[in-house]
C-alpha cells in the first residue's frame, strides 16, 4: 500500500561553500501529504527545488518511481510546483495561465478547454477565466496557481510556502481547501512551511529540518508528543523544559527528581544512569494549576495571564525563578475561573503525560546498546 514514489538518497548541496543539505535521505510514499518543516535557512526550500529540478545536488540521487531523475530537466519531470508568490504569468488571462502546461504538451484545443474548466471549477474560479491575475485577490491568485499546477495531473505536487502571503483567516480556509484537493485528486503533496501549526494540522507526515539535517520524521502526533530532540520540541509547539535528575533506575521505571518532587516515570528509550540529568518536557496544556493549599505540586505565583477565548494561558514563576507555561480550558462549571497577577498557586501534571529527553549530545541508543544497558543494571 505504501508504495515509494520519490526517494532522495545521500543528497548534499553547498551554496558558496555553505552546506545547505548534508547527506540527506528521504523517501516519500505515493499519495501522502508530507510537510517539510523548519526555520528559514534549514534547507527545506532547496530540498523542494531539488525535487522540481531547479537545483542539482552536489552529491546523491533523486529517483521517481524507481527511475533516476537526478539530472532530468524540470520540464521533463512529471511534478508540478505551486510557488510562494504564485508566479502567475501576468500577461496572460487566468484561462491561459492554467492552459499553459497543457499547451506545452500540445494537447488538442477541445481537451485543453475541458480540462482547464474542470481545474478552475475545482478551485471555484469558473467565472474568472477571462480575468488577468492582477484583477484577482491574493487568495484567488493562489487558487489559480494551484489549478495551473494540478491541471497537468502530476504525480506529485510541490508547494513552496504557498499560504505565507495570505492573512490568517484565509490561510485557514486554504488549508482545509488544500486537504480536500489532496483527498479528491489522490496526488502526493510535498508542502514546505515554517509554520508548525500549519504542518501539524495538514500533514500525514512531517519532516523537521534544521541545518540541512532531518531532525525528526514522523506523524504530526509523534512529532508533537514525542519530539526526538530539544530542537524539535522547541520548534514544534510550546514546551516547558523541566530539569530532572534520575534518583532510581528499575526495569521499565525510573524515578526522577523535578523541582524537589519525586516522580515515577516509565523508562525512556535512551540510556539512563543514576544521578543523570535530563529534560522533562511538558506541553502547556499538560500542566495542572492547583490551589495554593493543595498538597500536590510545586508552589509558584502567576506572573502573566492571557485570555485566548477557548483557553486561559498563564505563566507561573516558581520559587527557584523558573517560568512554567500553562494553558487551561475553561471549565463550564466554574464561570469565575480566572487568575490575577501575583496569585499564589501550585503547579503539577498528570503522570505519564511528560516526555523525557536526554541532554543534548547523548545519542539515542541502538537496540544492541539498550540490551547491554539493561543487562548491566541487573
Amino acid at each position: 500500500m505504501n508504495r515509494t514514489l520519490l526517494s532522495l538518497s545521500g543528497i548534499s548541496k553547498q551554496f558558496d561553500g555553505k552546506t545547505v543539505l548534508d547527506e540527506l535521505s528521504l523517501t516519500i510514499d505515493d499519495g501522502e501529504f508530507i510537510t517539510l518543516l523548519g526555520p528559514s535557512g534549514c534547507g527545506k526550500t532547496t530540498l523542494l527545488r531539488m525535487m522540481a529540478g531547479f537545483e542539482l545536488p552536489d552529491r546523491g540521487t533523486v529517483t521517481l518511481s524507481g527511475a533516476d531523475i537526478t539530472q532530468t530537466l524540470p520540464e521533463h519531470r512529471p511534478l508540478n510546483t505551486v510557488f510562494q508568490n504564485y508566479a502567475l504569468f501576468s500577461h496572460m488571462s487566468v484561462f491561459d495561465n492554467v492552459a499553459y502546461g497543457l499547451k506545452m504538451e500540445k494537447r488538442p484545443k477541445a481537451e485543453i478547454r475541458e480540462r482547464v474548466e474542470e481545474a478552475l471549477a475545482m478551485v471555484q474560479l469558473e467565472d474568472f477565466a477571462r480575468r488577468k491575475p492582477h484583477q484577482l485577490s491574493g487568495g484567488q491568485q493562489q487558487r489559480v496557481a494551484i489549478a495551473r499546477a494540478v491541471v497537468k495531473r502530476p504525480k506529485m505536487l510541490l508547494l513552496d510556502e504557498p499560504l505565507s502571503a495570505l492573512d490568517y483567516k484565509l490561510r485557514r480556509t486554504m488549508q482545509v481547501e488544500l486537504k480536500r484537493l489532496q483527498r479528491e485528486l489522490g496526488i502526493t503533496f510535498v508542502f514546505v512551511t515554517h509554520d508548525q501549526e500549519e504542518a501539524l494540522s495538514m500533514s500525514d507526515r512531517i519532516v523537521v529540518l534544521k541545518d540541512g539535517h532531518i531532525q525528526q520524521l514522523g506523524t504530526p502526533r509523534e512529532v508533537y508528543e514525542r519530539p526526538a530532540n530539544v530542537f524539535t520540541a522547541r520548534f514544534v509547539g510550546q514546551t516547558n523544559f523541566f530539569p530532572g535528575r534520575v534518583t532510581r533506575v528499575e526495569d521499565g521505571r525510573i524515578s526522577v527528581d523535578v523541582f524537589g518532587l519525586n516522580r515515577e516515570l516509565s523508562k525512556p528509550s535512551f540510556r539512563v544512569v543514576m544521578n543523570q540529568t535530563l529534560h522533562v518536557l511538558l506541553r502547556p496544556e499538560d500542566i495542572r494549576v492547583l490551589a495554593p493549599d493543595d498538597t500536590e505540586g510545586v508552589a509558584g505565583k502567576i506572573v502573566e495571564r492571557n485570555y485566548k477565548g477557548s483557553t486561559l494561558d498563564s505563566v507561573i514563576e516558581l520559587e527557584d525563578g523558573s517560568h512554567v507555561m500553562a494553558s487551561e480550558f475553561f471549565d463550564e462549571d466554574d464561570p469565575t475561573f480566572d487568575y490575577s497577577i501575583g496569585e499564589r498557586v501550585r503547579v503539577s501534571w498528570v503522570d505519564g503525560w511528560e516526555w523525557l529527553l536526554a541532554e543534548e549530545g547523548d545519542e539515542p541508543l541502538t537496540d544492541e546498546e539498550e540490551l547491554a544497558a539493561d543487562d548491566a543494571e541487573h
Partner: protein
Amino acid sequence: MRWLSRSYLALVYLLLYVPIVVLVVFSFNDSRTGYNWGGLSLRWYESLFNNHAMVQAMWNSLWLALTAATVSTMIGALTAVALHRYRFRGKRVLNGMLFVVMMSPEIVLAISLLGLFLLLGLKLGYVSLLLAHVTFCLPFVVITVLARLAGFDERLPEAARDLGASDFTMTRTVLIPVIMPALMAGWLLGFTLSMDDVVVSTFVSGPSYEILPLRIYSMVRVGLKPEVNALGTLLLVFSLVMLMVSQWILSRSKQ
C-alpha cells in the same frame, strides 16, 4: 503668491513652446522672408516635396533609424538578458563599458568611429552610419531592458519550465512578452536618437548616403529657408505621433 507661481509656470512653458509655435506658424507663411507675415500658404510644403534631394534624405533617415533601432534593440535585449541572468567573469566591466559609451562626449565617439572605419577601409555610407548609430543606441536599449528585468519575478521562468516549457519556449512565451514594453521603449528611444543625430553622422556619412539632419544642417548654413520650417513641422507631427503610440502601448501593457 498664487499669481506669481502661476506666471512663473507660464513663463517657463512660454520659453519652451514659443520657438516651436513660431516655427509651425511660419511654415504656413506665404512670405519669402522669415520676418513678416504674408498670408496663409502651403507653398513651402509643396517646394519641400518637390525637392528631390530632400525627400531622398528623409527616406534615407527613416530607413537608417528603423534599421539602427531594430538592430540595437535585438543586440541590446540579448545583452540585458545575459547581464541580468548569468554570472560571468567580466560582467561588471561589460556593464560599465556601456555607461562609458553613453556618457562619453559624442564627438569622441564620432572621431574614434571614423578612425576605426578608415582603418578597416570601410566605405563611408549606409553601413558605416548603421554601425555608428547602433553603437550609440545600444546602451540606452540595454539600460531600458535591464530596468524592466530588475522587477522581473525570477520564479516566472521557473514556473514555465515546471509546466513543461523548454528554455526557448519559455523565452518566447514568458520572457519576451513580459519585457515587451521595455523593448518597444528602447526601440523608440533608439529610433529618435538615430533620427536626429548630427555629430556622429557628420563624421561617418559619405556622399552616397545623405540623411535628413545633415541636409537640414547644410541648408541653414546658407540662411534660414522657409522650407526648413515646413520640414520642422512635419518632424514635430511625426514625433508627436510616435510619442502617442508609445504612451498607448505603455498604458495597454499596464492593464
